[in-house]
């Protein structure tokens, strides 16, 4: 059984800005534990001669030419913004007064 704790789940939720109730934390602690256990099974077959991979496609060096393509208009860019001020996105205060 994995060693995922409720504290770790609460910490992750905080980092990911997700509000979780204590019931949700309990449920996710168990579910995440099962996921970690499942993934750990890979370690049973992976030997040092199998290189780690981050991508299913055996591709490297996929580049695009440095050529400008049209951007969104300012109105398109701001259309999904909760708030704006002129042509800029407006966001709540970031830091409290020191």
């Amino acid at each position, binding site marked *: 059984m994995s060693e995922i704790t409720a504290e770790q789940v609460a910490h992750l939720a905080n980092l990911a800005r997700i509000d979780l109730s204590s019931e949700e934390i309990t449920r996710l602690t168990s579910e995440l534990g099962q996921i970690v256990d499942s993934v750990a099974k890979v370690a049973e077959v992976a030997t040092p001669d199998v290189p780690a991979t981050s991508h299913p496609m055996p591709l*490297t060096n996929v580049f695009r030419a440095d*050529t400008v393509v049209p951007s969104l208009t300012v109105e398109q860019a701001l259309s999904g913004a909760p708030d704006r001020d002129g042509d800029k996105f407006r966001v709540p205060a970031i830091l409290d007064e020191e």
Partner: protein
Amino acid sequence: MKKAELMDYDKALELFEPVLGFEVHVELNTKTKMFCGCANEFGQGANTNTCPTCLGLPGGLPQVNAQAIESSIRLGLALGCEIAEYSRFARKNYFYPDTAKNFQTSQYDEPIAFNGQLTIELESGRQVTVDIERAHMEDDAGKLTHVGGATGRIQGADYSLVDYNRGGVPLVEIVTQMIEGGEADSPEIGRTYVAAIREIVKALGVSNARMEEGNVRCDANVSLRPRGSNVLGTRTETKNVNSLRSVERAVRYEIQRQAALLHAGGTITQETRHWHEDTGITSAGRPKSDADDYRYFPEPDLVPVAPSREWVEELRATLPEPPAARRKRLQADWGFADLEFQDVVNSDLLDAVEATIAAGAAAQAARKWWTGEVARLANVSGVSADSLVQPVQVAALIELVVAGTLTDRLARQVLEGVIAGEGTPLEVVESRGLAVVSDDGALIVAIDEALAAQPDVLAKIRDGKVQAAGAVIGAVMKAMRGQADAARVRELVLERAGTAE
């Protein structure tokens, strides 16, 4: 904000050994952003260069800019780094409004370049070799403006505004190893190191390298180790120190601040600090905590970068001469005294003077014109000297002076004409009718008239009071409207005074 106590700098160094580290961010001057085809340019209206990829909207898919990879490899090579055979991008996850994606696309355990070295020379002649840990690729964040509050700073602001034009612009972050043994030179090491990086990226042509526009930005890490101890002190990271002088000041300030705090029995908090250019102090930002739990993981939308060795060697062959070596060579070639050469370097006129000499001018004349009259005119109009006039025009001007067609005074008028767009120096000479009167016959007529008009002067010259000739020379130069070579006029005046009746 309470101003921190500072310890006297010399006393701080008696008690503690400074340990430094620098992270320098270089903005590449590619045409487009790192992972999308939006233009990499500023000065446009806010949020004019964005797309679903750099805004982190659904459906956005990053595509790597080939030119950014090439520039990063060349920069890595210029820093003496090894270039990775296999390199990946990673997501650095954090929430901050300057990054709409909620992660920065960066590199973590497999940077494109690593294990480099850069040797810098301090004003004393001391050489310091800075070990480069890595140079990795990432994308820049958007620009925040803080509104409200007393100071326009982030603390106490009512709200903030975001322009994402800069979001996604390619950056290379160059990270040093710990720099020990800097001692009292530590602040100067910071300044000189950042200056050297700036010079290298400029010589490579991979960045516009303008610190005032944020093309090169420095984070300075400083910690103090008590003398006789092997244990490293807690470090602070002063962010976004954006001028060479500020790097020096910020390092010095942190040494003095930390020394005072430690000596009084306090402890240093490991934190990010903000540099305040106006007051010359640093202030605490957020402490390092949960916020630095970035949960890096390999970027699933991008495949690895695996530059072939052939490509790397091809790029190595494109590297320019290292700027420090170039300076040494040019100073020796030109035979400039240290001060003369520094004057050229500090005025950012090395390229202009070199090109002027290449176009045929003598080294000293090229230096004199660029750091003198051209720099003066540039200063008056508030632009850089090398944007005012082409080196080949300055060389042509110097040639006219050497040939005796122009005096220095006339040449200054011609230069103004060239800058005003009236053509080449020769064309300005012709259109403005500015050439020196080199026809001795015309000069002799004017001299004889002047001598006849001032018989007392003539008598003095004949008595051997040669300096009296000045009055006649002045009259002749006036008659010639300044377009005569004063030295030649003087020769002729003495000659005519000796032979005239």
